[in-house]
């Protein structure tokens, strides 16, 4: 636990995209060179203001599409971060296959990027077009090759399921294709249709709950057989390749958030950076700060921690909040333990396997009334 210490993780949001995926409701804007230049200047201001000797262990550059930036801008971005990334243990960047080239790959390697997260989504090229992606599965294979050529071989692939018109055979084929690229890590997300997306506006719905559940079960069956351990609801990794940065979130530790659309958590507060780019450019230092009560923190610790297969170390909870999990959650916690929905083994609190995919139901029982 790193309470009362500086955050050891940094998230940087790159709010630009070269095309818009139909399911995406993250902060994004069509890439424009001048705007991206202005954004880099704003980011510099923000870094200089907020970063006083940070001691970072992990850095994650996400988006949007970080590789939507031009090679020169990508270089500038990484240059801004160089002073803080020399000693990090994991330095991840998100990559969209069609915006990566030889040049950008070599820039990433030069600046010490150690991990790449690539959006594959599905190996079905027709389906890719249907969800607004502008690459093919072959482009993904090519991106993986480029990165490996430059020594970046800690690669994670993102896949989606429960997509419109997707069937089990298509999902299996996507997984087979993903495995053939020998990633160290896989994230598999079921489609959630958010209001503010192309899908949301078009009224597209995910597949029915039964099919989605079937697909999830299939994923949880196939991947461990291939050596990928499920360590979180949607995340699978070869041993030792769990995402250190994302574990910071699930361990509910503090982290810095930089740039438009990012959030951070420091010193019992969460803050949101403006999601509107102009607003951010006007005042790069602006943060909307939400103070977190002890109750907020206790619940959120559980909400994030139970997503992990390993669950929560109860001693950590006790040390952090000065009370035990049972004291903090009282009767509802006892009930969940009695019903076997929650389990305590080896000092760890876990969601029972049979209820892992029903975590929301368990969590809502723990929410304060």
């Amino acid at each position, binding site marked *: 636990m790193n309470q009362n210490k500086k955050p050891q993780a940094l998230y940087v949001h790159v709010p630009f995209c070269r095309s818009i995926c139909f399911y995406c409701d993250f902060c994004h804007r069509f890439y424009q060179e001048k705007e991206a230049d202005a954004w880099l200047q704003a980011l510099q201001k923000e870094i200089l203001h907020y970063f006083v000797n940070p001691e970072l262990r992990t850095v994650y550059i996400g988006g949007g599409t970080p590789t939507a930036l031009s090679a020169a801008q990508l270089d500038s971005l990484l240059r801004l971060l160089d002073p803080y990334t020399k000693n990090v243990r994991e330095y991840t960047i998100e990559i969209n296959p069609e915006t990566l080239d030889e040049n950008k790959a070599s820039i990433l390697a030069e600046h010490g990027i150690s991990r790449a997260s690539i959006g594959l989504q599905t190996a079905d090229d027709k389906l890719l077009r249907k969800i607004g992606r502008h690459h093919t599965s072959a482009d993904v294979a090519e991106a993986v090759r480029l990165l490996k050529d430059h020594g970046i071989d800690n690669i994670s692939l993102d896949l989606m399921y429960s997509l419109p018109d997707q069937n089990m055979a298509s999902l299996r084929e996507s997984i087979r294709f993903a495995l053939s690229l020998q990633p160290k890590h896989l994230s598999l997300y079921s489609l959630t249709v958010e209001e503010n997306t192309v899908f949301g506006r078009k009224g597209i719905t995910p597949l029915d*709950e039964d099919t989605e559940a079937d697909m999830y079960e299939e994923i949880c069956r196939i991947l461990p057989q291939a050596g990928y351990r499920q360590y979180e609801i949607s995340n699978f990794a070869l041993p030792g390749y769990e995402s250190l940065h994302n574990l910071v*979130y699930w361990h509910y530790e503090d982290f810095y*958030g930089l740039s438009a659309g990012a959030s951070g958590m420091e010193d019992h507060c*969460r803050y949101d950076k403006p999601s509107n780019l102009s607003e951010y450019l006007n005042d790069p230092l602006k943060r909307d700060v939400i103070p977190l009560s002890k109750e907020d923190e206790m619940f959120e610790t559980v909400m994030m921690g139970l997503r992990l297969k390993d669950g929560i170390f109860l001693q950590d909870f006790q040390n952090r909040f000065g009370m035990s999990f049972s004291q903090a959650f009282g009767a509802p916690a006892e009930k969940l333990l009695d019903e076997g929905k929650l389990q305590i083994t080896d000092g760890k609190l876990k969601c029972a396997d049979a209820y892992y*995919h029903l975590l929301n139901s368990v969590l809502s029982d723990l929410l304060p009334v």
Partner: protein
Amino acid sequence: MDQKYIRNFCIIAHIDHGKSTLADRILEMTDTVKERDMKTQLLDDMDLERERGITIKLNAVQLSYHAKDGHEYLFNLIDTPGHVDFSYEVSRSLAACEGAILVVDSTQGVQAQTLANTYLALDNDLEIIPVINKVDMNNSQPDVTIREIEDIIGLDCSEAPLISARTGLNVDQVLEQVVTHIPAPQGDKNAPLQALVFDSFYDPYRGVIALVRVREGSLKVGDRIRFMATGAEYEVLETGIRNPREVRVDGLSAGDVGWFAASIKSIKHVRVGDTVTSVSKPASEPLAGYRRMNPMVYCGLYPSDAARYEDLHDALDKLQLNDASLQYEPETSQALGFGFRCGVLGLLHMDVIQERLEREYNLDLICTAPSVIYHVYLSDGSMMAIDNPAKMPDASRIDHVEEPYVKASIMVPDSYIGAVMDLCQNKRGIYQNMEVIDAGRNMIIYELPLSEIIYDFFDRLKSCSKGYASLDYELVGYRKEDLVRMDILLNGEQVDALSVIVHRSNAYKRGSGITIRLKELIPKQQFEIPVQAAVGGKVIARTNIKSLRKNVLAKCYGGDISRKKKLLEKQKEGKKRMKEVGSVVIPQEAFMSVLSREDEPK
């Protein structure tokens, strides 16, 4: 003020004929309400009333009007509700008045409640001023409306103002007629006090506030008064009027309408319909009260959180002050725990009560489907009055069952006669009579089981007649019918709060309709739930709610925490209005679904 310059009147009308809009105009035109304070439907000050655009509670307001005769008049205007559920409130307001403005919508003409309310007013010896409204509308037919009023009701309309309450057109004529047509109140200021309590409400700081019409004598701050029926005595601490805000005055005297506070902490001491008199110079007799309306419909009200039973009790006590037609007594349900069986006037009334309890007293409630009172005759010759289907005894002990019937008077244009009669037949109606009222309009009389009309009859009537049919009804007695109790089992357990009494011939259809509705309404849970309907222990319909297989957030990273937590809180909030019965979580709507009269499954 001299009594001869006082006018006490109310406005009566069929629902949506423009009562509250006319009241708004009158308030504006008497300078009572400053323009900037004007909200639409000012008298409807319950949020609920303004949202739904209906008047639920009567409301008394004092206005001053400068008449053409050069004198200043004091008007006490009492607004009344128009929905058939609230005719009790209408009779209460009438008792405080000398006259009534009868508003008739000239695009619709005389409707069922136009008749019912007018007859109530005539019974109370009120002077009636007919007013023809909505004459600015394209489809207005003032001549036809006037002829209807004259022919059907027998009121002279030669002087009836043709108005638009919306635009204010000719509303000044209405005000003048109030002065010239409605008699001034009578009564002796020096006689012993007799004041009729026509409404009351609870104020947390000042106790019970009583709204009164002073018939005889006077009432001042400092007087000791007695409620003649309950015998309770208090010292008057404040007297006042509403304009429509509360304004304190030194006292009220014969002819006045106003309110008083006396630090009355016990709700039970103030009964609407009681007479207030003075302790030092008591009246020998109370005023004639008015007919107490008996509830026709009963339902169970339970707090979602069992720990709030006492709060619900307290809230009902206070609400009853303000709504004398509400009755309740404690009851227990195996499924829902401790709660109350409440007697109400109808479905809308029940809805209003539930919403007021939830809003004004911050309660989350489960309301069971309303039931009428069945008369169950046992083999030993005794009779049980059953207001809760779950209490219906075992069939082996029953000789026969009777259910209440109403005489429904439905006014309908020629072209919809067929549709309306079909509807009545479907609802087990017994045709009585049909009269032609005037060219193109008819009054159809049916006897219908009350249980068949309490739910969606009114809505169905409106939709099958494109809004043209109107309804009034009164209880006419009990009839023997082949009625059985249908039980609902969830996950194998009978849920008493879902039991319903049905006609045997409809049992199968209703059973499958209800089980399918329940399947739609009850959220999937972590296990499969069989839903069964049974009569006399025999299952007649069955379906299954499949189990919930996946309920987890796909993505949850650092930036998602606030949003995803809100999502969980929303799920949790939804659960507040659900009740855990055995192992199954049941939402509020499910308890009402047994009423769904769509006889075919949806």
